[in-house]
């Protein structure tokens, strides 16, 4: 069970704006990437640690979160470094959805959640059942629990750990 404050984003938050161009060539590092995460999304986040310091646990978004077709993993690393434990949205862009699975950050599809939450509402998420509760507004949303492979990768802290472990044990993949 995860509980904490949410930040509600607009439609079409681009990966390009979550991590702005000048950081695309920096190393992928949660601590480092989180300093300027969301810098291009809102002017108020365009300062060192501005987003991180708000202490959000969840992001709630509408359509096509993290879109624009960037494959860089700084986006997911930056969000995780900023303390984000799950993102709920109507839909996600494919590339970052994949990266999120590989990093073990739940990207959870749940219809209409964006219109039913305000920034700073307190949410509670149960990854096993997929239930999302808005404790501030006393509302509930059901999402699909993660597929077994996704849950397995998430449980070991991401695809790198999953594969490293298989290689070390000499086990086949897939």
């Amino acid at each position, binding site marked *: 069970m995860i509980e904490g404050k949410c930040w509600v984003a607009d439609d079409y938050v681009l990966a*390009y704006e979550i991590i702005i161009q000048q950081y695309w060539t920096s190393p992928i590092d949660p601590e480092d990437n989180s300093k300027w995460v969301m810098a291009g999304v809102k002017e108020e986040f365009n300062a060192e640690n501005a987003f991180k310091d708000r202490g959000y646990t969840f992001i709630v978004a509408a359509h096509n979160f993290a879109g624009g*077709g960037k*494959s860089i993993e700084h986006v997911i690393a930056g969000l995780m470094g900023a303390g984000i434990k799950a993102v709920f949205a109507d*839909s996600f862009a494919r590339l970052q959805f994949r990266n999120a699975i590989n990093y073990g950050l739940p990207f959870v599809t749940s219809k209409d959640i964006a219109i039913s939450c305000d920034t700073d509402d307190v949410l509670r998420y149960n990854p096993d059942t997929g239930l999302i509760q808005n404790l501030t507004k006393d509302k509930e949303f059901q999402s699909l629990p993660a597929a077994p492979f*996704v849950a397995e990768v998430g449980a070991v802290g991401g695809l*790198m750990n999953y*594969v490293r472990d298989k*290689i070390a044990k000499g086990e086949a993949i897939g």
Partner: protein
Amino acid sequence: MGMTITEKIMAKQSGRDKVVPGELVWVDVESVMTMDYLGKTCFDKFRSLGKTEVFDKSKVICVSDHLVPPPNQKFATMLNEWREVVKKHDIEYFYDLGRQGIAHQIMVEQGHVLPGTISIGTDSHANTYGAAGAVGNAVGVTDAAVAMATGKAWFRIPEAVKFHITGEWQPWVMAKDLSLHIMGMMHWNGHLIYKTLEFTGPAIESLDMAGRMTLCNMTVDLGAKNGIIAPDQITADYLKDVAKGDWEMINSDEDARYEAVYEIDVTDLVPTVALPDKLDDTVTVDQLKGTKFNKAFVGTCTNGRLEDLAMLAKILKDKQIHRDVNMIVVPASQTVYLDALRAGHIETLIMAGAAVDTPSCAACAGIHTGVAGDGDIVLSAGNRNMKGRMGSKNAQIYLTSPAVVAASAITGEITDPRTISI
């Protein structure tokens, strides 16, 4: 129930008889591409998995494209580190400065992508590989590192959408116009998120490889997982001398299942332009008649091929580019450059007043070679036009075909190529 071409390829590469949309499978990949600015991280991650040798030294393809030639010290140093790591792993195919090209062009042109197989790359436009009847997919560095170590990648089998394209291509209308038309119709990252897009029909069968690559290239911008065109004689002729392995013709079954089928007749298609900032804000070229611009750019993995340069040369032959327009042309690879040079296109373009630069991504991602500054209005044959994409956030980018860029470069205003006399 039959399977689509993408399902068949994924079934074959995962050792199954059948797969259905929604299933997660591990597949064998044919090749893994990585490039200059993410490649070192890929190799570092790969080694952190406990491996020192990649799964196949001839199937990890390394390309220098985004950062070459280095415009500053930071990138020069990054390139040096990149070269060192590629050397250290004894990679067979390293397309570095001098033998370079945009990775997606190289992958297809040099035969690293084979029909009926799956190739992945650490750059979003890896969807381009679908032009060769392969599944081409963009991934992050984690997936690439895993594939370098194991030769495998995980995939969710995507639902399929078919675009059945009929009719006759009209003069000056290009595959890019069809791409932009579909973009306007389906929306940028809209209903097609996660889908496999299949292009079929007589107007696809008559399209050359360059056009097929343009079409598949931009499926990533529709939000799709991949775009694919079944291999045929055109594919076979193209691959004849370059294929780096055996391959087979795989096609969709007659009774394959599609979530939706869209019919488009290209006879009615006209040159199309995407307005600044959003790719799906498209209009026909006549609606922008008279719109002034000051920079013209033709290149990229979308439209930097020989056929694109030939189109430019055809329109610009014995003409002069308008004095208020700076035009930069960047061939997509050294092979394209050399072919265009031998065909006389480069001379034609220089005589017309265009600057031709060495193959690279150039200003497409705002890194170097003609980046946009404040107040610039760019008419580009590239693939993305969001604010800041080519440099300044205070620049505007119109996207269109090479034919529209060439015709417009002569007049200094957005111009319908069908109105130019050649």
